[in-house]
């Protein structure tokens, strides 16, 4: 995003709205640090920030790579060209009853790099994808992040991606329960090397009594899950039982 300094009167109303603090005020004019801006679009939404001078607009190269990568992975109002799915990941557990993305005997892992609050560059994301590639992880084909990979086997990204910073990037994949422990160990280990944060999701099927199949194993591995979660009620049709 850009601020037209001719129009800006320096009221500063926009400054606190930037999720990564990229809007600065200097000499009674607001400006955006272009390298820090993640193109989430928040400051440009007139119904939210209400710039009295209407001085905030889009970056001229916003829809061309590499700048467009920031846009599609940061602005939830932008649809990914590749998946027709808005947002940054897949439908994950939202439609698991119909897609069967995570089946019985498997767990789905989502690593939302950059959340909360810090954002991420793809060089940080690559540290994680390379570490996981070393144990043979196959990345979710429908996730828009996978489309930015130069080589999904090694977990490396294209150069345009590596020039990009985004609000978050979600690494998604499914592994058999038998591989869960090793996978979580690698994730925990690589978390010590990254210069940002990630939120870690684990999708599992529920048993017929609503029990969490991998609960005991997670605890034995030292992972406690939050008391709140996202639950797919199984109302979708056609239902995938397997």
């Amino acid at each position, binding site marked *: 995003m850009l601020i037209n300094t001719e129009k800006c009167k320096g009221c500063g109303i926009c400054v606190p*709205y930037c999720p990564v603090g990229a809007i600065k005020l200097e000499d009674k004019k607001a400006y955006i640090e272009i390298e820090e801006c993640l193109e989430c679009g928040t400051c440009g*939404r007139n119904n939210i920030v209400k710039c009295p001078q209407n001085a905030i607009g889009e970056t001229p190269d916003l829809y061309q790579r590499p700048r467009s990568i920031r846009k599609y992975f940061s602005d939830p109002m932008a649809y990914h060209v590749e998946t*027709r799915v808005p947002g940054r990941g897949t439908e994950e557990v939202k439609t698991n*009853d119909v897609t069967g993305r995570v089946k019985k005997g498997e767990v789905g892992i989502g690593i939302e790099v950059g959340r909360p609050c810090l954002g991420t560059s793809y060089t940080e994301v690559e540290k994680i994808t390379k570490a996981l590639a070393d144990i043979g992880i196959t990345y979710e084909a429908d996730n828009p992040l996978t489309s930015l990979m130069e080589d999904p086997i090694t977990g490396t990204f294209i150069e345009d991606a590596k020039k990009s910073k985004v609000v978050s990037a979600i690494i998604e994949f499914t592994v058999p329960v038998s591989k869960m422990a090793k996978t979580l160990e690698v994730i925990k280990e690589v978390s010590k090397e*990254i210069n940002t944060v990630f939120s870690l999701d684990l999708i599992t099927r529920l048993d017929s009594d609503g029990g969490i199949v991998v609960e005991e194993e997670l605890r034995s591995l030292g992972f406690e899950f939050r008391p709140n979660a996202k639950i797919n009620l199984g109302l979708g049709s056609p239902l995938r039982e397997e």
Partner: protein
Amino acid sequence: MTHSLHRRGTRENLKDDFVVLITPAVGINHNDSKDKLIKILNKILELGPNNIGSYETGTVYSGATIQQIKEQLSETPRVRCCFDNPDKVEELVAFIKESGCGLSVTVSGLIDDVKAIAAKTDISPHSINLSLGTFGKTEELPEYVVLEFVTMCGHGMISSKLVEKLIDDVVKGRMSFEKAAMLMAQPCVCGIFNAKRAEELLDKYVR
């Protein structure tokens, strides 16, 4: 991804906080899902959600109306909303089940409470997305009080600086709880920020 599983808070202050998502699966059952979602939206409107929005319009807190949300449902539409009352969620889930629309429904909230809603509506939940926490440079995150607000946004659109400023405005008597909660809710374009919970948290911190 709505990130609703990563909402920070205690069991006590997450008690009346439910996010409901109704999602057609792209390429499987998304065709003709618009009419089904409009019927569900009508029911949501009747029940009175705490918040509702869409990627196309933004939310009721940023000026969108339910009519606009209905009119601008996309080719691959989704409905996301937030409730602060388990009875309303139960009624909505029962309505969707009864309709037989075949769209996927997820409810985010305290696991025990969501399971209780499923039991009351005679539903066996299919799968669960658990939050295993946050890793990496967690020392760079804002304080927990701020995280309780910002993690109510599904996509990280609410700035920690905005939350800190609004808390300060409330503490110094420059703004009401209600207005601060409403201003916090606005950047969350998908409509899962629970403004009532924000008001309650603000009230608690100010006291």
